[in-house]
């Protein structure tokens, strides 16, 4: 029995992946890939800017309505509830929406690539 020294592959390319890429080397394949990347980037940018708009609206809301920041809800000032609690569901919802849409983009791509 021989001992084999196990070393780390530097970039770890895998045979299965190589074939996945080779299948897309044709002109048409590249068109599909480019359109997939474009739609994923557009989706990410839309979700990110939507989230940032909501985030930016929070302090604006507090500044626009005088006295709102100090209003107590169950003893806690509203400003604290908004920034300390209210923002997290917005983050989670954005993430959930993104994951659904990203998976949809990918399955659309898969359909196109398989039809060929």
């Amino acid at each position, binding site marked *: 029995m021989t001992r084999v*020294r*196990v*070393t*780390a592959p*530097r*970039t*770890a*390319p*895998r045979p*299965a*992946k190589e074939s*996945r*890429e080779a299948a*897309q*080397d044709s002109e048409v*394949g*590249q068109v599909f*890939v480019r359109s*997939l*990347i474009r739609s*994923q*980037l557009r989706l*990410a940018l839309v*979700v*990110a800017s939507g*989230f940032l708009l909501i*985030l930016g609206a929070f302090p604006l809301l507090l500044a626009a309505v005088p006295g709102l*920041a100090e209003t*107590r809800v169950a*003893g*806690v*000032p509203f*400003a*604290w509830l908004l*920034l*300390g*609690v209210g*923002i*997290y*569901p917005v*983050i*989670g919802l*954005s*993430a*959930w929406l*993104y*994951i659904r849409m*990203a*998976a949809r983009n*990918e*399955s659309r*791509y*898969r359909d196109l*690539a398989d039809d060929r």
Partner: protein
Amino acid sequence: MNPGVALAALAVVSLATAVIGFYGLRISRTTGDFYVASRTVRPWWNASAIGGEYLSAASFLGVAGLILLSGTDALWFPVGYTAGYLMLLLFVAAPLRRSGAYTIPDFTEARLDSRAVRRVTSLVVVLVGWLYIVPQLHGAALTIRITTGLPSWAGSVAVVVVVCLTVVAGGMRSITFVQAFQYWLKLTALAVPILFIIFVLAGNGTPALAPPVANPTGLAPAGLYQNVSLLVALLFGTLGLPHVLVRFYTNPDGQSARRTTLIVLGLLSVFYLFPTAYGLVGRIFAPGLARSGQADAMVLLLPGELVGGTAGDLLSALVVAGAFAAFLSTTSGLVVSLAGVISQDVLGGGVDGFRLAAVVSALVPLGFALMTDSFALAGSVGLVFAFTASTVCPVLLLGIWWRGLTDAGAIAGMLTGGVLCGGAMVVGAMAGASSTPAWLAQPAAWTVPGAFAVMVMVSRATVHRVPKTMSRVMTRLHTPERPLATER
């Protein structure tokens, strides 16, 4: 508080960490196990581990301390720490997993087909890691000094020793279990005491919110620029953190990397409710803690201050245990990812090289931590985020989404961001917190766009250097795995 109780809490956390680490040793055999847990970690485990690793001294102690000092302005810290993961999900998670690389330097080398880019990325990643470990060790020093009365260095040294033992023994596989355990420990350790405190206080009615305490740090209140710049640093810094990214390689495929991130977001959102609650309760009921100049220790002192007696001692012990879990988990996560980078680049891979690299990557920041003093933990971690956002983040984002990136552009951009942000940090540290202008104290708002601009311009000028492998790599990054790996 009672030093014996605090010491016992420390011993239990360290022992639990070591035991879970050694248990993991039995199932880590190959180099693959050591580096990335063989990519078979389930999303819930992985997400708990990411949460455990990410919630550092800054989150556990620093956020509550800053909220005590500066009120709602400091709420941007936990929001930014969490929203950074949203950015990571949107722009990085799945493509990075699909790249098939082990570390960030692996990724940049594969994407840009250049050894030089790899070396620069490695250098930046190691710098980021070391900068990030130092505040953890400061937090440990502070905790030991406040709770046991032992000299500060004992805390830093204890963390480094436990981390080295765990990492050297088991690598990433055992680290995954340790980190996952530590997320839940940290959550419990913050949640139980504050709920108890609120329960005790509920009978007494709510006094008026104390006006902002007489600004003990001497810092001007944060203006719009500082809040925006901080958010830029936190949003874009998270997606370049080496210990966070290395976790994504342990997902089986791109879609599960996304699902893991969603769970992480949930875990972080729940966690950050508690430092916020500490900050608010501290501001209302114990504003005196801010004046002592040790706001970072507020979480540790609050149970003793507001509950007292045996119950207070027990709750304090729980908080101390959670704090140490925070230092241990973040430090060991960073050490694992740094050791991965150093051992592959300098020591040629292999398990022995990994062990040696792990010890080196823990000892260097220990030396630095022993030579320096801690200032506000959340603030110094915020600066590390700014540095990451100015260096690793541009090369990742442009590498994943822009076909035109070249090796020359990547190197020029990383160096520009590193020099600008690093320079601002050094000048700011020398000038002292009170005399540093806002644009130097929070440099991210101009260093991040600067790094992006240089990277794009130099890449445009060197179009002929776009690697031939580019479209292959882009295809691998963005196309879903087959067969339908998402249906699981």
